[in-house]
């Protein structure tokens, strides 16, 4: 199966039922995308497929053939995406394990909605679980990222 990952053409021989998550982690060595629950509950495995947020633990790898996948490693060069800058500025991370999924979710949100409300943030980021409870700074950082993103586009 062929697909693009972080801008590069990749070819893998994966079992038909293998989720994208394990193709990324175990076959391609892209370990930034995390396994948290395996059943689409926690969002730690969230990646972008053709720009749309997808839970890679619930996405059969075969369904992304010919598509373009972006993982946390490919979100930006030098961690300079507006979401990453906001995350650093507001000191969001704690243990850090869920953060790639949080960041990818936030990036997809502000990519399609330059000025999300609290309710819109809740609806989207509310699907991610963080056991450290970074939620308050996540919410603030999404607002800040949207602001940085709007400035970039001026």
């Amino acid at each position: 199966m062929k697909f693009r990952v972080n801008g590069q053409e990749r070819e893998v021989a994966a079992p038909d039922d293998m989720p994208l998550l394990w193709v990324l982690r175990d076959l391609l060595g892209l370990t930034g995308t995390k396994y948290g629950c395996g059943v689409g509950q926690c969002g730690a495995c969230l990646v972008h497929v053709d720009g749309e947020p997808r839970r890679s633990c619930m996405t059969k790898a075969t369904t992304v053939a010919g598509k373009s996948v972006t993982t946390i490693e490919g979100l930006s060069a030098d961690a300079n995406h507006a979401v990453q800058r906001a995350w650093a500025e507001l000191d969001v991370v704690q243990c850090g394990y869920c953060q790639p999924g949080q960041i990818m979710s936030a990036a997809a949100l502000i990519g399609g909605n330059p000025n999300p409300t609290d309710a819109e943030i809740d609806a989207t980021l509310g699907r991610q679980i963080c056991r450290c409870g970074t939620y308050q700074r996540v919410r603030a950082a999404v607002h800040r990222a949207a602001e940085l993103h709007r400035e970039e586009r001026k």
Partner: protein
Amino acid sequence: MSTGADLTRREFLKTAALSTAGLVVAFYVPLRGRFASAAEAPAAAPAKLAPANAFLRIAPDDTITVLLAHSEMGQGIWTSLPMVIAEELDADWSTIRVEHAPAAPVYANPAFGIQATGGSTTTWSEFDRYRQVGAAARMLLVQAAAQRLGVPASDCRTADGAVIAGGQRLRYGELANAAARLPMPETVALKDPKDWKVIGKPTRRLDTPEKIDGRAVFGMDVRLDGLLTAVVAHSPVFGGKVKSFDDSAARAVPGVRKIAQVPSGVAVVADHFWAALKGREALKVDWDPGPGATLDTGAMLAEFRRLAGTRGRSAAGAGDVPGALGKAQRSVNAEYVVPYLAHAPMEPLNCTVRIGADRCEIWTGTQFQTVDQATAAGITGLKPEQVELHTTFLGGGFGRRANPASDWVSEAVHVAKAAGAPVKTVWTREDDMRGGYYRPMFLHRVAVGLGEDGMPTAWDHTLVGQSVMAGTLFEPSYAATGIDPSSVEGTADSPYLKAVPNHRVQLHDFKSSIPVLWWRSVGHSHTAFAMESMIDELARAAGVDPVAYRRKLLAGQPRHLGVLELAAAKAGWGTPLPASRARGIAVHESFGSYVAQVAEVSVQEGRIRVHRVVCAIDCGIAVNPMTIEAQMQSGIAFGLSAALESQISFKDGRVEQSNFDDYRVLRLPEMPQVEVHIVSSREKPGGVGEPGTPPIAPAVANAVAALTGKRLRELPLKLGA
């Protein structure tokens, strides 16, 4: 005033020169205590538990590497301990690097005598020593510079990672090797706190860059040449054994390499996780469930209630409780229950093991290096020093990765041994959720007699629950009393009881096959709920405002009072709220820190919503206020999951929950706005990782009672239809 520390009296400080690595300082101190809070004088500990701690390394390229004997699991010590060293060293903060130390006796946590992270001990147990390490290194660098420049050391000063004398400036990197050859000073002078520039300054985390771009390596992310992945089929019932298994279908799964029975079950070893999981699904195991097959939490609770009516072991007592209860004007009786809880860190348990002829290498996120190392040595027949343990970042710990039984590491070593290859053993979320080592279920039965003034004259308190220390290496530490202090902490030593002339606390140590373990804030996770709920019930029975009632009972407790008043003031206690909302308060000391929280709640369609939490903390010297704020938010979120949603239960010996769909935890929409206020203090630093958790459940329950008139005494809090 500058503090001189007599290092010879405190054991010794020694240096070792590494020709390539520059200056290495190892700091040895006497063992001080076990699970003591900063407020207590640490107890003497068994001599066999070796003391020692802390390292720093200054390289010729000016980088300063702080080796953490403790594990970074989100709590922020990756930043706060280097701050303490950098303060005394006058380091250039941009040159600081951090690594987890290897597993070795020198890194034993003085609070435990083993290399371990827990009990919110890191900052209070390391604060003085990390400063002394920084100060000693600075002194050696100054001497090296003085020799090189031919000036007296007293003419040298330090700033931003360099020694300066007159117009000359020598970077620490240029001096490191020369400094490493100098004899250690016998004493070091520490900075006057008024001169601190780093300690107390809100400082961003040093681990952020690698945690926002996918580079950070957690145990789950370890990669080695030829590494296989295993999952293990565990007994569905605790204590169950494999009778037989049929692996013919499992072996046929592409990618499956080996199937092997290990003490904890049957391991399926494969090229990657997915093949291992598919192999396990195809595996047929016939289990002998053993006596655990009848476990039922409903039946256990009935037994807890029966036990609560019988005489337990005395954990605290004064006066004549039955007599005083008989004479009381009236009494208030209540029973509080908390369930078993899983830690459910976001990173499921995992461990990578590579065994060689004379060496065993382990990569895992652990809070308990010494125990894991000794366990692996026992399984492989190697000496502990032949077990090389690499601590990765922990994707959450909360106590689960500090297991005296070393369960997941032990299993992974058995699997790698059986496979004859390097193996990463991975637990699925379901394995993690059902694999035990829970916060134990506890029942508190409390009867309090009130005098004419509405204040308590007698307090009779019985706890029933499993000990987390029984049967572990920590059990001897409480042999004298037979009371696991972590079962009763927060009740037996409650400041409220000190104000009640007649009181007694009894404990029933319930035995069960359910593996239990410390869970963020340990005993305080249930005792604060019982104590702070009861105090609120008493205030209401007496017709006194809950803050005023606490103020009276805590008259001799200035630090409790300090946070109580601060939280109340900042929350606008007593000022009007919309009719749909109410406030509740709780105050509790744990791990040397004092925390009060005011929760503002409403009830929407039968569901409790927490909108705002005002949190005041007195943790002594606040090393990194940014981390303290984060840890209060974190502790509150963790406590709210338990207060509102989470529960592990058993039916026919099986855990009824399996994943985040049925073991519910707090999500972003339920996160209240948390405001943190830190008391300015020069007291010794207390913990911050855990103390934010205990007060939130009672603060919410008290607010619900204020709003609805209904007193909820069981966690998770549920309003009936």
